[in-house]
């Protein structure tokens, strides 16, 4: 296990090869996490995925690549992010001790950029000139547009028109960063449809285009690659917690849509059986109402966007429309590694309603001076359920995955009716 005195940002320690001594070893060579994952894509994408996989396998353990990656994470993203004691929330509950892993302080305002830095470096190395991405809340779109500006690559972001309305600020940020934002009018006009369009673009322009997927979803090797690029979150958390508390946390909480911030903070702790891992998914108006994005509570295994995982679907096996007040969690699927962790019981997943998440936005803002993203607030809301059951000295780390600036439109409408 990591030693608290080591500098967090040394690639030797942070290189993904560290995980080789861990017992948990997924995905397998076919890209499966237990029964989930795989490569369910049109034949045209197979050569591209094969090429990506072999290139990624090279850079994964390449000291130079990782040195450069960690250089960008430090000098550009602003890592390491702090582990902040949420002192008034801790006092409020009177049991346990709550820490926030401050991914909201990353450049662009969320964890998403950890992944886009890694993928854009890979794209550049593979000689691709054009980057495409899908986005829901716009955070991944902004993080992609940002690194494309930084690395000098053409950038096209697909975004559902419904999300463009909800997240206008992020649309303008992407444009300002030089990206082209293509509105998607098919289906529910949200993240699922934006992902369909991005895949269609990729199928058409596969020779010169790199698709930067924003969550731990999609065909192999994406779920593994996205996880590995976010592993820095868990790695820092582990070192910081050891440094501050002298031991690992008892609980780690994160919100789960596709599941990138969650797998980023969970992955390090999977073999530490005493660390309880909890994922919070969006119940929307309630997981029994039909207007929900609670994939584990209401979904069944199925294939969407290239992998086999849990999915919200109709009795005819059509993909059901998800609903959440948070655009980032408004997705009918979930990453295949989470599906595996759900089935094995290693991670517990619970639904949190729009209402409880919005109350948490307010509570966290007033008590901690941190306006969280509505996505993140789903995890914060769970403290209401979790904290009363804890003993005084139990440590809870919550991944504060993003800040709420982008949500001010929704927040204003919800609380102040404007």
């Amino acid at each position, binding site marked *: 296990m990591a030693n608290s005195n080591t500098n967090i940002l040394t690639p030797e320690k942070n290189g993904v090869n560290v995980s080789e001594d861990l017992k948990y070893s997924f995905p397998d060579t076919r890209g499966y996490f237990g029964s989930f994952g795989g490569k*369910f894509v049109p*034949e045209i994408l197979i050569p591209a995925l094969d090429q990506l*996989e072999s290139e990624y396998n090279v850079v994964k353990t390449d000291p130079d690549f990782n040195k450069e990656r960690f250089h960008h994470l430090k000098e550009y993203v602003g890592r390491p992010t702090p582990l902040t004691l949420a002192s008034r929330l801790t006092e409020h509950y009177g049991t346990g001790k709550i820490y926030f892993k401050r991914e909201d302080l990353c450049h662009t305002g969320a964890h998403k950029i950890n992944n886009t830095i890694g993928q854009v470096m890979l794209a550049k190395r593979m000689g691709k000139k054009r980057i495409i991405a899908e986005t829901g809340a716009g955070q991944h779109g902004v993080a992609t547009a940002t690194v494309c500006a930084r690395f000098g690559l053409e950038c096209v972001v697909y975004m559902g028109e419904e999300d463009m309305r909800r997240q206008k600020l992020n649309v303008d940020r992407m444009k300002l960063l030089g990206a082209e934002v293509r509105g998607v009018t098919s289906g529910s006009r949200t993240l699922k449809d934006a992902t369909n369009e991005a895949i*269609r673009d990729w*199928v058409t322009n*596969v020779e010169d285009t790199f698709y930067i997927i924003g969550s731990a979803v999609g065909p192999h090797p994406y779920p593994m690659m996205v996880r590995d690029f976010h592993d820095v979150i868990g790695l820092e958390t582990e070192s910081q917690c050891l440094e501050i508390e002298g031991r690992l946390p008892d609980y780690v909480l994160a919100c789960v849509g596709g599941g990138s911030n969650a797998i980023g903070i969970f992955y390090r702790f999977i073999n530490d059986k005493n660390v309880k891992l909890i994922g919070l998914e969006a119940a929307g108006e309630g997981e029994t109402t039909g207007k929900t994005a609670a994939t584990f509570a209401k979904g069944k295994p*199925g*294939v969407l966007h290239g992998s086999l995982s849990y999915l919200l679907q109709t009795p005819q*096996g059509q*993909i059901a429309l998800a609903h959440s007040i948070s655009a980032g969690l408004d997705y009918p699927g979930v990453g295949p590694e989470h599906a595996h962790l759900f089935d094995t019981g290693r991670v517990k997943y619970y639904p949190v309603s729009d209402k409880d998440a919005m109350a948490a936005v307010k509570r966290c803002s007033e008590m901690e001076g941190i306006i969280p993203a509505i996505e993140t607030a789903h995890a914060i809301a769970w403290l209401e359920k979790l904290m009363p059951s804890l003993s005084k000295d139990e440590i809870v780390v919550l991944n504060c995955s993003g800040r709420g600036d982008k949500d001010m439109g929704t927040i204003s409408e919800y609380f102040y009716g404007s």
Partner: protein
Amino acid sequence: MQTAIENTEATYISPRLLKVFEAAGFKKVMNLFITAGFPTIEDTVDLILGYEKNGADIIELGMPFSDPLADGPTIQYSSEVALSNGLMMDDIFAMVAEVRKHTQIPIILMGYINPLLYYGIDRFFENAATAGVDGLILPDVPVEESGLIQIASQNNKLPLIYLVAPNSTDERMRLVDKKSGGFVYCVSVTGVTGARTAAEVSSSVERFIDRINEHITQNPVLIGFGISSYEDAVRISERARGFVVGSALINNIRDERDKNPNDWKDAHFKFVHRLKHGN
């Protein structure tokens, strides 16, 4: 990349499909795609029978899916219409069974894996085979993932037909040939389904067809994506056994229905006749 796929037994080929290719001789085989339940559930059987009368040799019947990511806007549209018409999986089998009362034209079902998973893989293959289906195209199931369906496919003598694309390697073409039962579907350009201009279906098709003819030797090759007229069909399928038309049919149905909502089928069938015969 090593693939862990092994062919445990020779791939079955439907006698109806074999017969079509034998009978065609040097003539091009025309495979027509229509989304089941489009424009209405009642139209599908009529369309299939009319297509056969007007030159279709094979019917590819689309099983609509909410998120058809290998298809362009045209087939996404027809799929949405079919789903909003309330089409169920069992309706598709009923359509095939109804067609079988009249004709032995080979019918290939084309669709995405998720509705099959939900329906149950074994149940799907049993019911499809019983109804009289001759093969299955699942564009989101490459040979890597064929383990999901391989046993049901073999048990029910209902083979998969796989695709190759211009960026497929030679080795890949041989693998797809080995795993396919009936024909191999060649995608003429990279991209999703949809009608295209001649310039888009570029001369690189020539080199692609050279490679196809060298590496795909067990199955006949049908070429598709971007064919919307007799002239396209002649040019693109010059060195293949035949061709597939899909989006152009859907577009034509939409046009003819706009012009004449109650009596559009004759005009549509004329379009089909021209695709095959040029007049």
